[in-house]
């Protein structure tokens, strides 16, 4: 794997409730620089919500998110208050890749990638163009710069979305089931792009159902169940010899998982 540095992300006692239903019931986790951490869990276990709390698309009900040593939000009377103006620079430094890509359909691939650097970072136009070219080339789409999303395959769209997030030169990348909406034959190209990123030392927090990918790429795997981290460990322990019955049951349900040599 990659060399490890300081801590990029720490989550302490994170809770999130939607109305009366508590989805996250106290999560603690830490991601070091260059690490790839994979979150597993059945649907409804809260893994997407956890990811969305890291860039504050969801505002946590309790607990703290610490990014690069700085706790986000201000504590007052036991509650944590968040101001939108404070969250914007956080989001600018944390990239997110969505299940359904969410590319901007009225912009070309290049314009999609330029949009963040231009509008949010306010970089000069020429530099944005250069960045867009560089990151689209990196995800293997140098020849699709001027294509609109509707003319790209699902796999290509998702790689544009990855380039869009990378163009912000984020400290941390979040992947929310990035391959779940893809046709099976397109999954591989996106996973390969993600693996390359991890190999280059990108810090990543990944929600996925691709156990082979988790095995090959993760430094650490967390299994979420019922809003809590039920079990965690390195992939060759958690995925191969899980201690908890629930984890075993979950892994059995993913019969497609074949050990080591898998897809990589």
């Amino acid at each position, binding site marked *: 794997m990659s060399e490890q540095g300081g801590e990029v992300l720490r989550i302490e006692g994170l809770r999130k409730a939607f109305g009366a239903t508590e989805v996250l019931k106290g999560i603690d986790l830490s991601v070091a620089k260059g690490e790839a951490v994979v979150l597993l869990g059945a649907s409804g276990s809260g893994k997407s919500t956890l990811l969305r709390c890291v860039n504050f*698309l969801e505002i946590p009900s309790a607990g703290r998110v610490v990014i690069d040593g700085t706790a986000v939000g201000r504590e007052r009377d036991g509650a944590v208050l968040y101001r*939108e103006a404070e969250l914007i620079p956080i*989001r600018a*430094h944390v990239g997110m890749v*969505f299940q359904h890509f*969410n590319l*901007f359909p*009225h912009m070309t691939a290049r314009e999609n990638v330029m949009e963040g650097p231009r509008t949010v970072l306010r970089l000069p136009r020429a530099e944005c163009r250069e960045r867009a070219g560089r990151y689209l080339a990196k995800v293997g789409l140098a020849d699709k710069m001027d294509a609109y999303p509707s003319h790209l395959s699902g796999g290509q769209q998702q790689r544009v979305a990855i380039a869009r997030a990378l163009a912000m030169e984020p400290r941390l990348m979040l992947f929310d089931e990035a391959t779940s909406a893809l046709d099976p034959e397109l999954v591989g190209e996106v996973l390969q792009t993600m693996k390359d990123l991890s190999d280059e030392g990108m810090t990543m927090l990944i929600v996925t159902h691709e156990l082979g990918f988790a095995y090959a790429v993760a430094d650490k795997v967390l299994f979420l169940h019922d809003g809590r981290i039920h079990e965690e460990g390195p992939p060759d322990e958690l995925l191969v010899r899980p201690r908890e019955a629930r984890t075993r049951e979950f892994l059995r349900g993913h019969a497609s998982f074949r050990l080591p040599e898998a897809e990589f």
Partner: protein
Amino acid sequence: MGYEWDFGIVLRNADLLLLGLANTLKVTGLALAFGLPLGLALALGRLSPRRWLRAPVGLVVEFFRSTPPIVQLFWFFFALPLLTGIEIDPFRASVLTFSIQSSAFFAEVFRGGIVSIERGQWEAAKAIGMARGQALRRVVLPQAVKRMIPAFLERVIELMKTTTLVATVSYADLLYQANNIAQRTYRPLEVFTVAAVLYFVVLFPLSLSVRGLERRLARSGETTAH
């Protein structure tokens, strides 16, 4: 039944009718110019997360959508000057009324267009660090506007039809001119028929383009906002 049509009278007064049509278009155009930006502002107010803003804006929009425009016009023309002590002529009262009245409808067109954009687009914009205003301007509105065009044109048609009310406060629009000529010449049948034809000639092509656009948007898989 042996009525003898005589359109010569209409022809001899064509300049008056055309002047009326020009005035109709002028009121429509001005109401549009003021009503559109105001409508966008009202839509944003109605979509605001702040309740103290959302609730009163919603009430204003609903009030102007749910009361007859002629009542609004009479209020602005007869009541408002007494309340404020500011004289207001028929032209200004008309532009004021129809700007506000149409803005309430445009607000709903804007709102419909904005909420028709999937949540994922807002989230993607947020995720790269955009503020709400940036997300709206750069990502949501450019997509929404395309879907709103048919509904928007539909409102323009309704607006122009509604402006006939200005005749009731003696502003010399097409209907007012027609009425004058009809009374002077005792030829209401020809005059009002021609006036109706003139409205039709302006509005029908607009209607056709609405339908054409809707069909084209439907074919490209776009939904239209109503």
